[in-house]
């Protein structure tokens, strides 16, 4: 059987190939999307508030401070809660994975382990489905697409726990570091802190999302470079609305003024939201699927097969048997 490939053929009239975009869009809207976001950071950094602000709804339950009868968990717990939200005909199953107890103990050794375990368990679940003989039409995706890491706004340096966590997890999940409760710092303090944090991240070799090595082309690279320069975003979250200049805005009221969450002059929340949701939502999923998941899978298969240099054990067995 012969095959040959020619270059472009000149078209003499409209065919309708470009309708595939519409066809594809319709299909994806019909099936809907899954998105799984994890928040990590010690208590009191406003994790739940930020997620609720991002998705403009109560998708994350706020712990109402440390009530007398509410105990800090002894170990890091993993709590995943799903909600369905719809906008413009697009429906999304959003799962927020909370990690109460992280960084809250006196001794926080290895407190990243339950988190790492959870992330790998989701990859394992997916892999198990994928290797079935009879597979589901759509494998349910519980893999963590994005992990927002909350940096405490100390104004000085990253804590050792921060670098330890990010170093270990940045190779198995997309990590987006944010500076929490940015309204405790002035703009100058913020800039200095940011630069110090970024330098430390660079020195520690932490590749946060969007990772340089996964930029697909020049356009990607230039877009992502801009984002990387501005990260980590200094954010403020709120689910309360106030009247400012005749408009209802989300904000935090203080005696000296109202911090407007979506005002780019006040904090970088809007930038984070646009980046996370309006431009890179699909990319977060793709990097998780095409890179992090594939890395996990390859490692897993190598473990079981034991032969590191073979292209694929099933493949060679295949060839031998047939």
């Amino acid at each position: 059987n012969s095959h040959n490939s020619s270059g472009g053929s000149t078209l003499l009239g409209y065919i309708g190939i470009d309708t595939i975009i519409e066809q594809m869009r319709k299909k994806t809207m019909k099936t809907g999307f899954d998105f799984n976001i994890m928040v990590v950071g010690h208590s009191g950094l406003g994790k739940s508030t930020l997620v609720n602000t991002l998705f403009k709804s109560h998708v994350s339950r706020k712990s109402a401070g440390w009530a007398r009868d509410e105990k800090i968990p002894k170990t890091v717990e993993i709590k995943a809660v799903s909600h369905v939200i719809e906008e413009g005909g697009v429906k999304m199953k959003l799962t927020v994975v909370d990690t109460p107890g992280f960084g809250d103990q006196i001794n926080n050794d290895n407190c990243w382990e339950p988190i790492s375990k959870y992330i790998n368990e989701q990859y394992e679940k997916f892999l198990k489905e994928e290797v079935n003989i009879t597979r589901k039409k759509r494998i349910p995706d519980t893999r963590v697409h994005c992990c927002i890491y909350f940096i405490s706004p100390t104004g000085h340096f990253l804590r050792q726990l921060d670098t330890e966590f990010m170093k270990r997890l940045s190779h198995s999940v997309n990590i987006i570091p944010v500076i929490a409760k940015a309204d405790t710092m002035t703009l100058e303090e913020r800039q200095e802190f940011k630069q110090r944090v970024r330098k430390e991240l660079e020195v520690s070799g932490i590749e946060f999302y969007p990772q340089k090595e996964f930029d697909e082309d020049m356009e990607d690279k230039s877009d992502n470079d801009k984002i990387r320069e501005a990260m980590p975003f200094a954010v403020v979250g709120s689910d309360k609305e106030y009247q400012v200049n005749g408009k209802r805005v989300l904000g935090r009221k203080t005696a000296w003024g109202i911090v407007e969450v979506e005002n780019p002059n006040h904090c970088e929340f809007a930038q984070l939201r646009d980046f996370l949701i309006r431009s890179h939502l699909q990319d977060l999923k793709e990097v998780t699927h095409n890179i992090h998941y594939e890395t996990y899978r390859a490692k897993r298969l190598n473990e079981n097969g034991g032969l590191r240099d073979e292209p694929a054990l099933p493949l060679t067995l295949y060839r031998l048997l047939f």
Partner: protein
Amino acid sequence: AAEMRIAKMEGEGARAVPLAGHVGFDSMPDQLVNKSVNHGFCFNILCVGETGLGKSTLMDTLFNTKFEGEPTQHNQPGVTLKSNTYELQESNVRLKLTVVNTVGFGDQINKEDSYKSIVEFIDAQFEAYLQEELKIKRTLHSYHDTRIHACLYFIAPTGHSLKSLDLVTMKKLDSKVNIIPIIAKSDAISKSELAKFKIKITSELVSNGVQIYQFPTDDESVAEINSTMNSHLPFAVVGSTEEVKIGNKMVKARQYPWGTVQVENENHCDFVKLREMLIRVNMEDLREQTHTRHYELYRRCKLEEMGFKDTDPDSKPFSLQETYEAKRNEFMGELQKKEEEMRQMFVQRVKEKEAELKEAEKELHEKFDRLKKLHQDEKKKLEEKKKSLDDELNTFKQKKTAAELLQNQAQQAGGSTTLKRDKERKK
């Protein structure tokens, strides 16, 4: 319908919550589509039909282009498949189109095996994808998908019924590929005959249990047009890349002395319908069906053939891995057995050779002994002969000595005179 969809998702354990403002994830489909556009699309069409039914012309007409191809040789012994890939672009959409043609289909006297090369080809594309999917380090994201998304089956415009070759072939292909049957060169049939022909074909397909591709009717936006189109199957098409002036427009047509058949005139043929369905409405669905239905079926059968089974969900994850570990051990066992056998054989051979050599050695020794004996015998004989000769010689010598002695004595008596005489002579 939106509520229904939310309800379905809720059923998966998630409550619906309202949004207090614009979040922005409604751009998700755009984000996904943009990524796909950047990546480019693949579409692979297989044209099955006898020689001369206008397969190449139809492809040229559908895609509004002259696909450069060498005119195919029609003197092959069997059915071969020739595939060509083209890069087309329309606005920002890049399409890698592969057109596969069956060469020699229906040309043979005995067509029993005609369908085989087609089935093998389709399976080979599934196989390639499966092998990539099974790799440890795989690049599915950038894999050039060669699986056939649509099979256009060209029916000869006899006006009567399907040929048995058609039925047999379509039956073999219907579980492997989306089949869209079309009546080729339909300008050879009159309108009234065409209606009867279509009915006959449809009923023959149904009575033989051939599953042809149904345009999907579950999405409201396309349900209506798709179900209408389903009722027009099989499409009666005419292809042409020649243009003829009709009125003040240049249209694709075939010009006859009695009139002109316009390809894009829906009263003349179903070409427009085919193009609508194949490209403008259902291209994505054809790709999806190929992946989620036909490929999954192939994969399942292939893996089951190899002896893999799904284990229950509570057991260790890798059912695939486990089973082939077992197979691997089995295989290693076989290898060891073979090795043992070879070793045995080797030992055997060595023994045999050794025995052979020993035999030879023995023979040599015997020969040597024989020769030695012979030699000794000869020597003995010779010695005896020598002895007898020596004896003779001795005897002779004795006789000679005796004779000489006698002679001397005789000479002594009358021999002194001789001596005197000799002495006197010497004086």
